[in-house]
């Protein structure tokens, strides 16, 4: 009963995505920003090889938004501090689990529950348990991240697009927060990523927020 309600929600979300590019209200001003306008990310060498191209595509989507803010990247061993990293962290053991997260470090005014100020470091962590390796019979219940191919396919309503997920995280990396509107739609910065949907381009108000900041 409960599961079928959730599936219904995802189907509804997919239908909303039929109008790509539509701008929805709800993107707040970017509360954090880098004071230096180029950033380099070290990509954990243990990430699956087939995940490289989706990362590059997501990174280039950011870099095409504004020439004033550019993200570079190289592959290297995982480093837990001192430089920005994209790593591959298994999740679980008691707490909540998620597709991916960005850990931001910043200084600035504001209470703990607020977010304003200059970014010092930002690291992206991908839930390694959810990477989908090329397969034909993987479990249909999974929320796996597709690295090697589009989510459009036989498992459309069950899987998540790695490129869309990384673009969302790179949005956080750049300083964006989640949207404040609750409706799911074509924009990238919604808190939840509906399964089987592609969000590989920012919508207009997200682009405007980014370009105003940098």
């Amino acid at each position, binding site marked *: 009963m409960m599961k079928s309600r959730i599936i219904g929600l995802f189907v509804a979300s997919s239908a909303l995505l039929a109008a790509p590019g539509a701008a929805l209200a709800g993107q707040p001003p970017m509360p954090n920003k880098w004071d230096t306008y180029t950033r380099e990310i070290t990509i954990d060498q243990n990430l*699956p090889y087939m995940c490289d191209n989706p990362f590059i595509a997501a990174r280039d989507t950011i870099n095409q938004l504004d020439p004033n803010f550019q993200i570079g*990247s190289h592959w290297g061993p995982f480093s837990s501090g001192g430089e920005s990293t994209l790593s591959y962290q298994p999740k679980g053991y008691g707490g909540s689990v*998620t597709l991916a997260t960005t*850990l931001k470090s910043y200084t600035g005014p504001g209470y703990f529950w607020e977010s304003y100020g200059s970014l010092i470091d930002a690291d992206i962590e991908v839930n390694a348990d959810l990477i989908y390796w090329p397969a034909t019979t993987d479990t249909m219940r999974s929320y796996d991240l597709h690295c090697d191919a589009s989510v459009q396919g036989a498992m459309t309503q069950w899987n998540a697009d790695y490129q869309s997920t990384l673009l969302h995280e790179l949005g*956080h990396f750049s300083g964006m927060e989640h949207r404040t509107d609750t409706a799911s739609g074509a924009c990238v910065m919604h808190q939840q990523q509906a399964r089987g949907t592609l969000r590989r381009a920012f919508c207009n108000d997200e682009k405007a927020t980014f370009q105003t900041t940098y």
Partner: protein
Amino acid sequence: MRTFVTATAGLALALAAAGSAQTSADQGKPALRAAGTVDDAAGNFLQDKKLRQSEQKEKLRAAGLNFGEVRSLVARFKPKGKGGLAGLSAQKQGDLADTFLDEVALELATLGFRPGDLKDQAQAAALFSAASDKLVLAADYADYKLLSKAVVRGKVTGYRLPPKGSAGGAVMQVEVLQAYKGEIASGTAIEVVMRSGQDAAGGQLKYSDEAIPAPGAEVVLVLSQVAPSLRGGSRLRLAADPSAYTKLLEPFAVEGGVARASSPGIGDLKLSDL
């Protein structure tokens, strides 16, 4: 317009780039790594995962918990993880299955379920299924409720941060208004461990997937009580108070009679359905 280097060309570039070499958007196209096999990628995954699992097993052992017995009880139910992966050796397939079994058992043991809790076949089967679904983000609210110690509606009253000059996680302070599961009386003040917090210089560290409701907000919390020594999942040292709760899901925001979800795969719920 950007184009990507081919995997073959990338091999030479990746070799040249080994060590400290960097590519940046300013400098041109990035080098792709040499294309590896699915088996290689699975090997890297298993190496990382087993390291993480061995660390958690050691924590359980140090806390005097019999993980082996929990694992053998879980094994009877043959939980099924990824299966039928094309291009993966039989050896790696077997390793993945074993690793997933360990993962389910570690999840249950960390949440506080003991061999005695798993003797009842029906109860055990439901718990194994819920823990398995949680790990692959297929769990629904009913699964999380089953795995939880308590489900409450409450009002956020504030946050407790580590002393100035020290790094650590924050603690969310909540006044309970109503309990849907567990023995927490309304009016009780509880504390919930956060993964976000502050660094030693007083800067803020925040995980983007962690919801941080402002004081005064009404929330629904699905809580567990993981021993402080077993807590993980954050780069920060987490609160050591044994009475503090951990979140199994990010807080639902209460709007009228609806609890709005902020965790992936979980839909909004009516308060009357909690």
